[in-house]
């Protein structure tokens, strides 16, 4: 009654059931993992049922021709994966996850290879069957991994060299790629060994450069920026900030469904909200929830909108003085934007208005007497 296929699926089903029980007992009930394992079990039960009903497609099991069985590296890779998996349980989660990936990949390759070796009595046909099953998976995966390594290595080079050298390196590399591509195009009969050799030399060069770049570390201005927090530090004054206002976005991606649109027009600040037919001076905002305002500047000067976060803030959001003399006071702001531009500002008010010493407001530095009150019930 039970043939090779049904035995395999019944075994997998039993293993999956045991895994689920172990997970529920030893890890956690009502967790995502339990749901996922239940789904795997249900799928395997279904597949087992199908395989039994169709009687393994009525295929007859042939005695294996030992001469067709090739040496396989996959048992070795599987063991390496299991070692990583066990190591990950002790050392770090990343090894565990990497181990799972290696074990799954190796088992898949091993299963398909074993299956292909008994597909027929023709070794060439068997190899062709293996390729048909695995190449659609192997090629994209290997290409993605290879490209990932190249891109990562190139990024290390670009982060290590100066900006101008980076531009030159980019131009040189892209020109080389174009040149080599052109040669390949005009000489389609080029020997595959030459094509492969050029690609390998290029890849090895970039990887070596990447290793060197990683060793050299970040260039000086990036190290300084990381230490100072230039690109995340908001300076909300009237004057232009050296870093924060650099290349201000003049357009807006987060255009839909803001809590309010705050307009500065003819020196007057007003809030436009869906459902209110007239501009408002008060905006109600839910507590403890990120809300997005859109600031539109119709003034002829560059302006920014500042949101005060109040005297009572969320834990861990204390006012901190940075070593460069700037302070992330209890406020946040947009960049300076020119006339006609708009920018979004997402704010979370952790504490209600009644907990604040002064009203929460939206203001524009340099525009006196104008403020939108934010009420957090």
């Amino acid at each position, binding site marked *: 009654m039970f043939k090779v296929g049904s035995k395999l699926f019944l075994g997998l089903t039993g293993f999956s059931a045991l895994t689920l029980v172990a997970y529920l007992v030893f890890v956690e009930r009502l967790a995502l993992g339990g749901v996922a394992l239940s789904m795997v079990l249900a799928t395997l039960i279904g597949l087992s049922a199908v395989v039994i009903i169709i009687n393994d497609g009525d295929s007859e099991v042939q005695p294996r021709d030992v001469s067709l069985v090739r040496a396989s590296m996959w048992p070795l890779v599987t063991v390496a994966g299991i070692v990583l998996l066990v190591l990950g349980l002790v050392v770090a989660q990343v090894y565990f996850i990497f181990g799972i990936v290696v074990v799954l990949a190796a088992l898949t390759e091993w299963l398909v290879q074993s299956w292909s070796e008994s597909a027929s009595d023709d070794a060439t046909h068997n190899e062709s069957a293996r390729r048909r099953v695995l190449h659609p998976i192997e090629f994209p995966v290997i290409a993605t991994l290879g490209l990932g390594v190249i891109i990562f290595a190139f990024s290390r080079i670009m982060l290590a060299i100066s900006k101008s050298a980076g531009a030159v390196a980019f131009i040189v590399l892209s020109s080389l790629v174009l040149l080599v591509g052109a040669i390949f195009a005009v000489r389609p009969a080029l020997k595959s060994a030459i094509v492969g050799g050029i690609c390998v030399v290029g890849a090895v060069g970039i990887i070596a450069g990447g290793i060197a770049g990683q060793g050299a570390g970040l260039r000086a201005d990036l190290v300084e920026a990381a230490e100072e927090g230039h690109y995340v530090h908001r300076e909300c004054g009237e004057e232009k900030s050296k870093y924060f206002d650099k290349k201000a976005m003049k357009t807006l991606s987060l255009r839909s469904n*803001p809590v309010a649109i705050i307009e500065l027009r003819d020196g007057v600040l007003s809030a436009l909200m*869906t459902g209110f037919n007239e501009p408002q001076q008060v905006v109600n905002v*839910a*507590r403890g*929830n990120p809300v997005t305002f859109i600031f539109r500047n119709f003034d002829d000067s560059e302006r920014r909108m500042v949101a005060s976060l109040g005297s009572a803030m969320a834990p861990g959001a204390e006012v901190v003085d940075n070593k460069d003399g700037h302070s992330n006071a209890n406020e946040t702001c947009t960049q300076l934007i020119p006339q006609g531009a708009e920018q979004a500002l*997402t704010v979370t008010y952790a504490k209600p208005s009644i907990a604040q010493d002064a009203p929460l407001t939206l203001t524009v530095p340099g525009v006196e007497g104008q403020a939108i009150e934010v009420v957090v019930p």
Partner: protein
Amino acid sequence: MNHRGSFGTRDAKRLSVAKVKVRRFSQRVLFASGAIALLGSCATNAPQDTWQPKGPNAKMIDDLQQPVFAVAGIIGIIVAVVIAYAMWRYKDRGQPIPEQTHGKPALEITLTVIPALILAVVGVFTFRVIFDLARTDDTEMVINVTGQQWWWEYDYPVQNEWGITQPIISSGQLVMPVGTKVLLRETSRDVIHSYWIPALNGKRDAVPGRIHTLRLEADEPGIYAGQCTEFCGLSHANMRMEAVALSKEDFAKWVANQQAAYQAPAEGTLAKEGEAVFLNQCVRCHQVDGLKRADGTLAIAAPDENVWSGAAPNLTKLMTRNTFAGAMFDLLRDACRDDVWKAESTEFGAKYLAGVDEACLNVNDLRAWLRNAPEVKPMYANPALLADTNGKYRGMPNLGLSESDIDKLVAYLLTLK
């Protein structure tokens, strides 16, 4: 190459027996499903029936869906009858295979054009309804609605024309004036929820970081039940809501009461002791506006420090509502609840505004909730399993209150009117 073996006689018999069993089982499942669907249509107490609109927005949807269902039903019956006839008429009786023909352009074009025309007509009316339901320029009142696991918060911005001179915040029941175009501005604090009061309009998702609008308008005073309709976690099925429509006069009274100052319980009473328990335990998450600590400072709740969503229901006027725990439980005993729900529209407002008193309080459910909330409503509130949420709860935890503390709290909560 290997060759596949042929089917054995025993295998064939076994397979045919299995087929018969599967067929019988399928027939029984089909019959049972049909019977359940048929019996379900006989329900008389169906407060979330989409076929009983109680306001102009729901009526618009109903006016669209009735003819569409009728046309679709007729077409469905015709198709089913034709298929059944064809199955019976051309059943395999051993007759020779009839002549095979390909291509009947006139018939094929007709059978393509007719459904296309039907869909075009349905589409025109559907688009009109969609645009009408999306209107916001005729709004008469705005209410902010915020969903979180697993309850809804209602926040009424200042609207002087309705007597709302300071924000009102509530939960569980959305109170609105009858015959008024109310616009809900919906959002969510955690995951996607969906707001749906079937008698008043269709559903609208509440999405974190976005403001979605939904029109509501009720023709008559009354309570209209609803249900979160976007799966949002463990207690999604218990995330309910009720829209309460009051006459404009009654709504004004409700607004005035909601804005009334906090009245502390009298000294020496059980309720006063309950206030102390509330200050020690509940105020970590639940705000009661006007409640002061012993040193005279306002008690400010900090749900952002204790709850994953960053909010817990404001309990300032708890006993003016008829529900608690995300509208999962009634604050009124069954008899009192029926008295309000089944009241004539002329009497409804007075009965609703009477709120909850000691005689009508559903004390059993309230005490069970205070005793161990996660036991009566599934919530991720086990302190041992909060690593993923930085120690913050999803829902109310078991506070381990003594029976004596529960007595005091119930007495205190009864004063919040």
